[in-house]
């Protein structure tokens, strides 16, 4: 085998593999992204009757729009992870490592190297994104939703533009990051930056609107959002910065500070021969303090995740343990997941509601919502009138075509357990999610595995740090 790698071909490989294997890996990654988005869409579908349907209806609808909308956001998260993982290969860290220095000495042209790097990275990103996009569409066909072609090109462009913006921003930051670790932080920061930019420039209301997205030109309507103008400006500016900065820093040999070779108990100073002023250049520092910070942060994050997951599980167990007559109360408050739409709009389906525990002497007023027991079942209804020891209760919401007042009934005052005091829609959705298979895996299985393998996880991060 004769090795005839060009710089562009070298850039297409993010590990020690052949180019063909590298391309196959990217395609496999894209297929995984499509499958993951599709799976996540199903998870969201299990939360259909929750606050999510009101807050993010664009990902909850039974349509191609929702699966693709989800995909174009998922792909950003995964591409950022891909960038962070392969930071060494994808960005300009190699200039800092003087890899370009060697190649320039061997006759390579830095401008050609810059463009090769840029195009190779763009090619990889577009390849992954496009294949994943197609896979998502194909999978959505299985659901037999109505296929509307009109918003597909627009959605494709929206995702692509975000990725290109993140890519060029990450490339630019990598030219200024002096260490690989900092570069990785900056890469993560680019995703946050793009999110902030889109929010600030009102891009989200446009891309989450199915009607807007059927018209390609809406994206470029400056009256609706200036995101595309600003984004284009950033891409061009960053491209130019990358070109000139990479050329400029490739002219110099980058000296990495190596305090290890300094003699012990000695400071290195620069003394101005005219003024005699001293400037400390380097000092033998105690090794490993950065590593210890990383260790501590990693360990803390793991502990926090495990604790939160366990707390959620305990909370769910407590709520699920409530039975009529034996409601679990926390400091006099009974948490109760309301799985019906009969009290809308006051209480919506799957909201986590709170009821103040009351005794038999408490004066219940008309109009108050109560939690009561009947035939060994718990009900939530509104008091419409009361007599001595009897309460007339009714639901708030009757479906269309049904007879108003049909559910009105009389209950004994003794059957009342609590008085409605509030609700939390997000906690309700969280409990709903935790009760799904994915939720159980995430909140129960993952912490259990992490606890069991915490030693190995800790050692993995220590190894990673030393790389």
């Amino acid at each position, binding site marked *: 085998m*004769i090795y005839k790698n*060009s710089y562009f071909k070298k850039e297409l490989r993010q590990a*020690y593999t052949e180019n063909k294997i590298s391309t196959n890996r990217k395609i496999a990654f894209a297929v995984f992204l499509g499958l993951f988005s599709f799976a996540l869409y199903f998870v969201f579908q299990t939360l259909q009757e929750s606050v999510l349907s009101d807050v993010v209806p664009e990902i909850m609808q039974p349509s191609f729009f929702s699966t693709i909308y989800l995909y174009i956001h998922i792909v950003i998260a995964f591409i950022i992870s891909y960038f962070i993982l392969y930071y060494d290969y994808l960005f300009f860290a190699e200039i800092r490592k003087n890899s370009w220095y060697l190649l320039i000495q061997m006759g390579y042209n830095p401008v050609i190297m810059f463009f090769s790097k840029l195009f190779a990275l763009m090619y990889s990103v577009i390849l992954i994104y496009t294949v994943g996009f197609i896979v998502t569409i194909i999978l959505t066909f299985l659901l037999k939703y109505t296929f509307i072609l009109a918003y597909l090109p627009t959605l494709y462009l929206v995702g692509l533009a975000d990725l290109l913006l993140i890519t060029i921003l990450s490339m630019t930051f990598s030219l200024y990051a002096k260490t690989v670790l900092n570069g990785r932080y900056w890469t993560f920061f680019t995703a946050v930056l793009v999110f902030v930019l889109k929010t600030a420039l009102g891009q989200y209301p446009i891309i989450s609107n199915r009607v807007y997205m059927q018209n390609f030109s809406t994206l470029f309507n400056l009256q609706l959002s200036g995101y595309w103008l600003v984004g284009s400006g950033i891409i061009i500016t960053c491209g130019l910065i990358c070109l000139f900065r990479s050329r400029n820093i490739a002219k110099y*040999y980058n*000296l990495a500070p190596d305090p290890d*070779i300094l003699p012990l*108990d000695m400071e*290195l100073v*620069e003394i101005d021969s005219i003024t005699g002023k001293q400037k400390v250049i380097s000092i033998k520092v105690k090794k490993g303090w950065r590593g210890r910070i990383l260790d501590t942060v990693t360990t803390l994050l793991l502990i926090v995740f495990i604790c939160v997951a366990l707390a959620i599980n305990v909370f769910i167990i407590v709520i699920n343990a409530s039975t009529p007559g034996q409601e679990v109360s926390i400091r006099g408050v009974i948490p109760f997941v309301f799985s019906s739409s009969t009290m809308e709009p006051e209480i919506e389906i799957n909201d986590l509601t709170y009821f103040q525990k009351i005794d038999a002497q408490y004066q219940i007023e008309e109009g108050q919502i109560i939690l009561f027991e009947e035939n060994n079942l718990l009900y939530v209804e509104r008091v419409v009138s009361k007599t001595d020891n009897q309460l007339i209760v009714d639901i708030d919401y009757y479906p269309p075509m049904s007879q108003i007042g049909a559910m009105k009934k009389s209950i004994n005052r003794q059957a009342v357990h609590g008085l409605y005091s509030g609700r939390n829609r997000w906690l309700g959705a969280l409990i709903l999610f935790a009760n799904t298979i994915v939720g159980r895996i995430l909140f129960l299985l993952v912490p259990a595995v992490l606890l069991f393998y915490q030693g190995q996880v800790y050692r993995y991060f220590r190894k990673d740090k030393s790389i």
Partner: protein
Amino acid sequence: MEHGPENIVLMENVSSVEHFLVNGGKSRRVLDDINLVINRAEKWGIKGTSVFEIKLLLEIIANIRPYDKGKCVLIERGMMRHKRVILKHVFYIGSSDMLYNNMNVLEYLMFATAKSKVNKVLLQEEIFEYLIEIGLGHLSLTPNHMLNREEKAVITLIAAAYSDSLIIVFNLPEYEWDEVLIKAVAEIAKFIRKQEKTLILSTQNSLMIEKACSHTAIIKDGRLIYSGSVENLRMTYDKIEVIIRDRTAKSMLEKLNGILPGYNLVAKEDRLFIRSEGSEFNEPGEIHKKIIESGFIPDSIEINPKTVENAYEELILKNDL
């Protein structure tokens, strides 16, 4: 090959900008009053008591760092005003991170030399055979990320040897070299010299200087205490004439002191070193004769091959006094 300038590096009274501050008090220049002349096609090994000092010297030579006083001329062209700018005629190797980890050794060397006009098939054959010749054939298909830092550095040196740069500065004094790699560096140094190029390397390893270098410079406390040929250093400063190996080396020491008055005898474990102190008997044969005549029959007796390590120790000792 075109005939270039003979004088490759000329340093006259060069002093560094950097100073050492000992315990926050007294300061001294890291390098002071350095005078060094390096000619074309020479192989220099720079050694010293401080890794930092020798590293800094080579950084100044390669135009990577500025200097404060004196004059430094590279290939009779003078230094550029803008320090650290890459000079085409200087190939500086200051770390082993330059290689790409997504390639193997042979692949990387082919990639690095891709801009040469040589036919790729012939070039690959040549590089592969060269790797075998210098004793690194076993590494030729090893992925770069599996090499240790010393091996990576040697691969970088091979790439440099194939470049057009007239000076190759191999500045890794903190690295530790085994015999296989020393042999490889020595072979690469020969290859570099054959192309009329100059190699300047810094190391703490005396064997490396002995095997790979024609000239050496030694720095102690920021000052150059020796510059010249390796041969001259060995012959001038390694005073050990004979090494005797015997389990009773220490007990032999006192008795031999009387028979060899013009010599300095030092016993280390099972070895006895006989050093000349300006004695009239500088012939190892004479020493051997005297020992046998005195009735001692040691396990082995050998003529000291004159090593850089001994010469270096002697030189440092002499400068300490």
